[in-house]
């Protein structure tokens, strides 16, 4: 646990974590629920709730499920964008960062993925997936979706790559995308090192991390088993493939700190 997390206590406040969710599979909302359950166990907030765009409780329902009058809302999104700027404020009927309504105060926090500790989480995940592999002989890829719709997540992924580079730990740190240049499909041409670590810059696992990216990497798709067969030896390299960064348990700390940052 990060030392700062120990200092945070909001027993008279509620935390609402907002995820995208899915009508097709439970993998999209699973990390949001797991982080919420972990934060509830720690007792940091008086109550912890989740809400989703595509699942229940919806953004129109969730505030009815809350007791406390001070409510922190943290979007569990990888970056700012359409959902954090338009959909969530509209559906929760927010006036801006601070909404005072009917005796309640709603504090709309920055998305989890915007937190400065994301860099540390990516480094942690990369080290964990490739234990004992020397980073000075490793190319690290941070993989985003990369379409116009997700422009902001590409910006956030680039920002993280630059920050990880500044640490000087890895021989090279590279951005790659599923649908635009530089493409992750060309990973062996883009990477110069014998070891390659790939971390998807997504909030949850799903088709992208189970099937699409493995297909582009050239490793067989085995559903969630894909993360249990590291390393993969192909194209003359040793490849380590991580699950989505949003599934990292330390994400719970980031959500708590993003709420605390509102008052800082």
């Amino acid at each position, binding site marked *: 646990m990060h030392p700062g997390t120990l200092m945070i206590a909001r027993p008279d406040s509620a935390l609402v974590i907002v995820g995208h969710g*899915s009508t097709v599979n439970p993998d999209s909302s699973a990390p949001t629920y797991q982080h919420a359950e972990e934060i509830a166990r720690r007792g940091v907030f008086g109550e912890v709730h989740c809400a989703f765009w595509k699942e229940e409780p*919806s953004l129109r329902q969730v505030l*009815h*499920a809350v*007791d406390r009058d001070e409510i922190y809302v943290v979007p569990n999104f990888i970056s700012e964008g359409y959902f954090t700027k338009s*959909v969530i404020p509209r559906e929760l009927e927010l006036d801006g960062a601070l909404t005072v309504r009917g005796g309640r105060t709603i504090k709309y926090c920055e998305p989890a993925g915007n937190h400065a500790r994301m860099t540390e989480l990516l480094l942690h995940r990369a080290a964990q997936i490739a234990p004992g592999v020397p980073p000075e002989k490793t190319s690290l890829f941070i993989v985003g979706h990369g379409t116009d719709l997700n422009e902001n997540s590409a910006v956030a992924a680039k920002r993280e790559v630059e920050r990880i580079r500044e640490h000087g730990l890895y021989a090279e740190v590279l951005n790659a995308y599923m649908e635009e240049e530089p493409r992750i499909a060309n990973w062996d041409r883009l990477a110069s090192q014998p070891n390659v670590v790939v971390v998807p810059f997504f909030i949850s696992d799903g088709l992208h991390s189970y099937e699409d990216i493995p297909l582009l990497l050239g490793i067989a798709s085995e559903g969630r088993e894909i993360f249990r067969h590291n390393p993969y030896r192909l194209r003359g390299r040793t490849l380590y493939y991580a699950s989505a960064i949003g599934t990292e348990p330390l994400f719970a700390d980031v959500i708590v700190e993003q709420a605390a940052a509102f008052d800082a």
Partner: protein
Amino acid sequence: MSRDLTKFLAEWIAEGGSRIGQIAILATAAAFELRHDEDVSRDGLELFTKWEDARALASRDEAGKFRPLKTAPNLRRGWRLVLADAAQLRKALDYFYPAMLGVRASHLLGNLVPVPLRETLGRQTGMYAVTKNIADQEARAMVDRFCAGCLKQRLWELAAANPQPVQVQAGKLPLLCHEACNLLVAEARKVVKKLPAAK
């Protein structure tokens, strides 16, 4: 603190409340036990003891299919969930029937405002902006078809609140829908774009 939904729940049970959707609540002196209401007198049920277990129990139907709509009448059977207190019970019920306890409490307090479908569709943006083009007749047919697979009582109509009073059965917590869900909004998009409807 403006509300205390845990207290609301405990009082509702003390007054004889024992059913929410397809869930039966069996209250004893020491604990609360939840079961599928068709499993009340069934033996050999798999035992669960943590409120977090409710999430997995509510997640998939009998055939293992994901349940995006928790008030669909397809809760799986064969389990029992024993919880020590009303606080844990509240959390478990929020997994089985998200926000339904709080929505009912808001309704009793006069704080639940039904939102007509036209208003919900009218504020959509992005890929759902097109839903405001649905014709009245198409919208009515869609609601009749799509909402038939949901246990909630609909408090809204196309252009106004539903004038029908809420039906309350003895011992049963009514599941209330004060606004169309995203599943219905997504269905409206399919209708407008003439895409295949959800099964």
